[in-house]
């Protein structure tokens, strides 16, 4: 049952669209709550690429990234009534995506083979999950096929999850520290510390690349 107030909001959203103004995420969510599927489609359009990219860099698996990005939108849609505007919508959706990705990594862990590298590693922070290779071709195949691209991708994939999520959100998605801390549910200091630690780990893994080595 659509109330008069809902009608007003719906009309408000359409009015914004007609005037060429970009409706905010919150307006789109409100419209979605009122049953406007085109508003939700707009949200999907707005976030599908960032989410897919984030999940791909997180999981190092393109098909899985696309599947989880779709699953994220489905979950947002069915939980839209519970969404409240205390945080930015981007924080909310990245948080859901991160949780799904972490669940996926745990699922992989259960299926993983014993990794000799993991067995001989003494530092638990440096231990990496077994990452099945992604055989799918990327859009920019030329770059990814290059030695540098592959080295960076495998270095990120080898990071522990607690460091991988913040570094990807910061350096690849370009989010602010505060937003990252909200997404991951961490303190600001912890977030910065983890990003620094992730940089340090990547520095160690990529020191054979030109410009990364400390000796240069």
């Amino acid at each position, binding site marked *: 049952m659509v109330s008069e107030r809902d009608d007003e909001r719906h009309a408000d959203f359409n009015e914004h669209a007609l005037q060429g103004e970009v409706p905010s995420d919150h307006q789109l969510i409100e419209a979605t709550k009122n049953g406007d*599927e085109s508003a939700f*489609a707009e949200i*999907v*359009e707005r976030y*599908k*690429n960032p*989410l*897919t*990219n984030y999940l*791909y*860099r997180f999981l190092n698996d*393109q098909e899985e*990234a*696309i599947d989880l*990005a*779709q*699953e994220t*939108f*489905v*979950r947002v*849609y*069915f939980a839209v009534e519970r969404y409240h505007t205390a945080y930015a919508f981007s924080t909310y959706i990245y948080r859901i995506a991160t949780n799904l990705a972490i*669940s996926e990594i*745990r*699922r992989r862990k*259960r299926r993983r083979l014993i990794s000799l590298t993991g067995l001989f590693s003494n530092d638990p922070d440096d231990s990496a999950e077994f990452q099945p290779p992604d055989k799918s071709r*990327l*859009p*920019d195949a030329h*770059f*990814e096929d290059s030695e*540098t*691209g592959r080295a*960076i*991708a495998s270095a*990120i994939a080898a990071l522990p999850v607690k460091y991988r999520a913040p*570094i*990807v959100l910061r*350096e*690849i998605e*370009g989010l602010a520290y505060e937003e990252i801390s909200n997404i991951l549910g961490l303190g600001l200091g912890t977030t910065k510390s983890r990003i620094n630690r992730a*940089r*340090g780990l*990547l*520095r160690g893994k*990529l*020191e054979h*690349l030109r*410009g*990364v*080595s*400390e000796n240069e």
Partner: protein
Amino acid sequence: MNNEKNNKADEVISDLLSGLPRIEAPPGFGKQVMARIAAGGPSATSPFWFLSSMKVAIPLLLMIFVGAYLFVQSPDTESEQGPLAAQSERSAELPSIESAAKEEEPFPADVDVSESRSDSVLPVEGSPAKESAFRRRIETGTRQARRAGPRTETNVPETANEGGSIDRTITRPPESMILTPDLDGAILDPREVPGFETVGEFKPADILRIMGIRAEFGENGWRVTSVDTLASGRRSRVLVDDIIEAIDGVPIGRDTVFKGKVTIRTLQIRRGDDVLTVAPGN
């Protein structure tokens, strides 16, 4: 210097990461999302949910079992489980009373206790080892008797030696008087000791006579004057000059009368300074 190098390296790392190509959602992504929404909600739970829950449940159950075991084994539970459990635990801690009893020859059935008994309370003569074993049993039994609750003003009526009438169908002996060890150091639980059962009205002398024990009431109480050969009183090692203080936990006096259904499982005797409980059953 090192910090500068690290900062420079971090900048390079940042450039490399931000320079990675961005992956875009494939065409038809939005339609697929809407199709999944139309299909009815988020995908089903992982088929591995059972395994993951077992990963938590098994250690949790193990911890609960270990905790429960430790709780049961804890000495603090003695008081909560009552004197019976406490006595049972103590009996388990006793030195090898049974082995001492095995070393000793069985009480000779053809020897009259009234004749063999001299000033010593020890019926075993000749072997010092047997003598010490028997003495140890007596001492251990005495310690047990004291732990289990020796005679006190509260559980011995003042009129015990003056006699009285006791209706066995009503009066029950206090637990502390029953749960004392017999001569073998075993804890006597009246619920487990077989006993005589009869109906009628009996004086202490009548009951003792049933067990083959002759006793006279003197200034110290009911003193054993003889024990019949092969009688149950003999088997339970009641000796001449023992003072029978209680039958089945009920203190007896000169005129004590047991009425109704009488069950006799234990005798409490005083031998010198020792208070012992014996089971004349079987």
